[in-house]
């Protein structure tokens, strides 16, 4: 990296050569392996953004002076970069505040616009909540919905998808890459089925940009959601792709000054947009090399963890982005597992923040038991992950899992050859 900007947080994370600092050790910040939650802004991206907060602060909608013209030029340049990464026309890109807004705008906007055609929607139980809850809201407004379960590997059975189609199906929404298990759906095949049946097809691609090739010139997709902060851009900015040929119409969800050709009103956040443009440009230029490097790290992590007994990978390994490894450790309880791995920043399949232990709905949809869903960890690797990080993680996981299993009566019973499914538990 060639960034030389002075930012306290980035300075802490990177050394003078722009390389991620060695942050291992008990008192250091945990190693960041949660890139699917969010990524740091690439210092090169941050450097591009800053002038648009201070010097070039104009409103891109101001047509009567150079402040506005400069901002507008930056916005349009960024729009072109976003379009280029995904094989779209810049005029098909609508700025939003992020993937949640894009998903809401696409699903509610298209369903409402085309509701005379029908009021049935198909989606998948493993979608992000921003899709599921938007569809639920439409149900509240009188639409009906089918929530398809994926196969145990996380992928959709195309025949089951076809079978869910009704004469009044107006919209289908399927995510490109799953946020928890990283599996890649066959968007081309699903899109073709939608085309044949005259169904609007929306794809949530928040986890896909920079990870899989996206070419909307070829993909039979009508609407696609993006965000910047999973691809080394800033939070709070996203985009919705709205196909022009054939033209897809959506009803605006945000009314106001008629920005973004009336589809999304609101003054454009120039600096955020510039950041997203730069982040997507870097993704386009570097993704092939970067993904090969990340795949090596992921496989190293997988092979390191697989040396332990009773570990289960969640989701298909072949149709999967290189960044993700989601793995369950049997006979270890989820919350104690999270306590044990404080040295790494990861996500857990167990949401133990409240009185009720809610296992991951995605892993449950794959048919995983509550126990395995609870004891899962999502490792997500990214641009600044090093081989040392992976070595540290493998050693940490091995020693902690060993310790917890030493403590576990279930592990002892398993080792004694007792079939735990046949034990009469005193449920409480």
């Amino acid at each position, binding site marked *: 990296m060639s960034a030389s900007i002075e930012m306290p947080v980035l300075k802490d994370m990177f050394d003078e050569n722009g390389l991620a600092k060695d942050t291992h050790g008990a008192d250091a910040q945990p190693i960041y392996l949660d890139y699917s939650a969010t990524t740091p802004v690439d210092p090169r991206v941050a450097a591009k953004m800053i002038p648009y907060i201070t010097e070039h602060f104009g409103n891109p909608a101001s047509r009567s002076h150079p402040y506005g013209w400069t901002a507008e030029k930056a916005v349009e340049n960024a729009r072109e970069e976003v379009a280029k990464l995904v094989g779209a026309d810049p005029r098909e890109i609508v700025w939003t505040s992020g993937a949640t807004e894009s998903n809401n705008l696409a699903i509610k906007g298209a369903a409402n616009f085309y509701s005379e055609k029908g009021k049935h929607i198909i989606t998948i139980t493993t979608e992000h909540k921003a899709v599921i809850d938007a569809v639920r809201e439409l149900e509240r407004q009188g639409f009906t919905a089918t929530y398809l379960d994926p196969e145990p590997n996380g992928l959709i059975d195309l025949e089951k998808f076809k079978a869910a189609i009704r004469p009044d199906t107006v919209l289908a929404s399927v995510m490109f890459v799953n946020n928890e298990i990283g599996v890649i759906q066959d968007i081309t095949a699903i899109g073709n089925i939608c085309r044949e049946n005259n169904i609007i097809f929306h794809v949530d691609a928040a986890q896909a940009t920079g990870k899989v090739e996206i070419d909307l010139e070829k993909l039979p997709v009508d609407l696609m959601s993006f965000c910047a902060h999973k691809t080394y851009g800033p939070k709070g900015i996203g985009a919705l792709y709205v196909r022009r040929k054939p033209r897809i119409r959506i009803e605006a969800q945000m009314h106001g000054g008629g920005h973004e050709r009336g589809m999304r009103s609101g003054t454009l956040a120039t600096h955020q947009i510039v950041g997203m443009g730069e982040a997507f440009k870097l993704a386009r230029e570097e993704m092939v090399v970067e993904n090969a490097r990340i795949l090596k790290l992921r496989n190293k992590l997988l092979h390191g963890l697989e040396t332990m007994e009773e570990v289960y990978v969640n989701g298909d390994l072949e149709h999967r982005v290189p960044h993700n490894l989601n793995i369950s450790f049997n*006979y*270890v*309880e*989820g*919350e*104690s597992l999270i*306590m044990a791995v404080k040295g790494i920043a990861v996500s857990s399949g167990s949401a*133990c*923040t*409240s*009185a009720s*232990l809610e296992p991951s709905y995605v892993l449950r949809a794959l048919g995983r*038991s*509550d*126990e395995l869903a*609870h004891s899962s960890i999502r490792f997500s690797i990214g641009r600044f992950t090093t081989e040392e990080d992976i070595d540290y993680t493998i050693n940490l996981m091995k020693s902690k899992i060993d310790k917890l299993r*030493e*403590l*576990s*009566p*279930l*592990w*002892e019973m398993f080792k004694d050859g007792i079939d*735990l499914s046949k034990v009469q*538990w*005193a*449920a*409480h």
Partner: protein
Amino acid sequence: MAYSDKVLDHYENPRNVGTLDKNDPNVGTGMVGAPACGDVMKLMIKVNDAGIIEDAKFKTYGCGSAIASSSLVTEWLKGKTIDEAYAIKNSAIAEELALPPVKIHCSVLAEDAIKAAVADIKAKQLAKETA
């Protein structure tokens, strides 16, 4: 979830982890909980002929509070009579570890484990007397 220092101490350095010979007539075993509920505790106590608990061991599948609760009771049990052990209340465990309300069930489970282990040793003693 914020844990108290005592919970963290027992979690990091659990006391008396292990098993005793379950076939020993002086050893009582209590196993409570279920994997689907997120915790299983196994508590074993060794009682001498005077009815005093000489040794206690545990294994727990569960959250940090469940591990700490069972680790703590193994410390408390040693040197107690089985009747004193039977009288240990979950509230004392919860208080000692400063468990938050959502984790009170961990202390309840630890109390249940003690009662189950005591019941097991009493049954063994009864079997010995009637033999």
